[in-house]
């Protein structure tokens, strides 16, 4: 078999990639980001929820590790900020061990306005197993006797108002994989019809599309771009830093596309040349 591999030194490509990523970030260029339907669906659901059922409960689940911070953390920041500007109650949980620390980081990054801890929001922390995830749908206090600050959950007004997870009007998971969306679909959405949304990294998002098409999830935020789109929707450009990274992301994606086209052009030319000999 004829060998037609393209043996190119990757170092100039690495250098080129560094340049196309670093220059836009350093120049702080901002690009308008068209809003996708999947992201708009999440935004509109939350806005409508606040209008039609004010003071409803929203559960945010931080199901990602520190390695996925660039993709999912901006999403968590913008959605939390939107929730904190609306008349909604928020409970934070996490199916991944890094989740509680990342929740604290998100709460530090946003403007909490007049929202009070324990009344408008609470951080319950890590969900260690499926039994807890299932159990908290009917009794939060039983499975979370204390919050991450050490307060008894029975003393928190938000838990007194919403003692069961199934009272939630929306559960949104920012998920880097399993455990993540599947658990909520299986144990929350299917039995209790709790509307569910997901924030996903670009690599996982295609796998969630069937659930969006079948309306099992109300919307999907995809990667850092989803957060950038959300910044425009909530009129807080620059909040999570996602918009400022969009030029760099565009440039790097186009670079990859151009390299693929160039690589294939070289491959076709080489193949034709060898056939001609």
């Amino acid at each position: 078999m004829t060998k037609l591999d393209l043996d190119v030194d990757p170092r100039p490509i690495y250098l080129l990639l560094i340049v196309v990523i670093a220059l836009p970030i350093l120049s702080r260029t901002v690009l308008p980001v068209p809003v996708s339907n999947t992201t708009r669906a999440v935004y509109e659901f939350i806005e409508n929820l606040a209008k039609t059922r004010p003071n409803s409960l929203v559960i945010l689940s931080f199901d990602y590790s520190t390695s996925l911070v660039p993709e999912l953390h901006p999403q968590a920041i913008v959605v939390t900020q939107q929730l904190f500007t609306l008349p909604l109650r928020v409970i934070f949980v996490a199916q991944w061990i890094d989740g509680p620390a990342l929740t604290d980081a998100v709460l530090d990054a946003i403007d909490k306005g007049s929202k009070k801890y324990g009344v408008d929001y609470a951080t319950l922390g890590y969900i260690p197993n499926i039994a807890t995830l299932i159990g908290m749908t009917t009794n939060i206090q039983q499975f979370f006797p204390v919050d991450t600050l050490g307060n008894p959950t029975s003393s928190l007004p938000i838990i007194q108002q919403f003692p069961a997870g199934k009272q939630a009007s929306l559960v949104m998971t920012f998920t880097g994989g399993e455990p993540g969306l599947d658990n909520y679909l299986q144990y929350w959405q299917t039995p209790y019809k709790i509307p569910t949304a997901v924030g996903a990294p670009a690599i996982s998002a295609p796998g969630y599309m069937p659930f969006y098409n079948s309306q099992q999830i109300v919307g999907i935020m995809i990667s850092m771009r989803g957060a950038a789109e959300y910044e425009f929707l909530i009129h807080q450009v620059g909040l999570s830093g996602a918009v400022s990274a969009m030029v760099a992301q565009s440039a790097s994606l186009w670079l990859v596309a151009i390299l693929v086209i160039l690589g294939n052009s070289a491959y076709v030319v080489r193949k034709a040349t060898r056939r001609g000999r």
Partner: protein
Amino acid sequence: MAAKRKMSRWEIILQAAIFTVGFFYAVTYYVKVSEPIDLQMVADNSLAYLTAMILTAFAIGIINLTRIHWRNIKLRRADWKFSLVLIGSLYGMAIFSIIASPFALDPRGFIIPSWLIDVISPVWNFLYYNVLVSINTSIFSLLAFFIASAAYRAFKIRTMESTILLIAGLLVIIGEAPISDLIWPGFSAIQNWIMLVPNTAGQRGILIGAALSIVAFSVRRMIRYS
């Protein structure tokens, strides 16, 4: 076909336990039994034992890791300094996390002195947010370099199938870049269609196929067919 080996007494007990647990969970998922005992509740609560088992495995891992690296340090084996860093990081972060973090055992300072929590808290914050997050995100972002140098070699128009894959992949990559919409709005419309139609069809096939395979494998395991 070779005859099945006769099971020992312990294997019979184990097989009976596998069948009973598997059958119990399959039944409780589909059949609601609330009287005389709530079987769903029993099934859900029993899952906590899974966590206990995972934690045991985790503990064994930590003990093993400690033993190996402690011996490395004790015998001054090659690269023993890295073992020292590993042991220090493992136990240092664990102790700091127990004192002052979202996982703290006593966040309100009933037993652990408040001054100690106040001292450790900024240290933990620095180690977690400035060291761990930075290291992990840096490692993850290296993927961009691998993808950039591998994509043009991997995506080749060798066959009809690979050509279709290449075109679809290129359109999704270009559609994902926000700047593409400024060049031609059709890019994101095409990407959206690829994601919602062919991708969904393929993903559904994979999901349903995988689910059926899990059912088939579980049944085979329950009746000791494999």
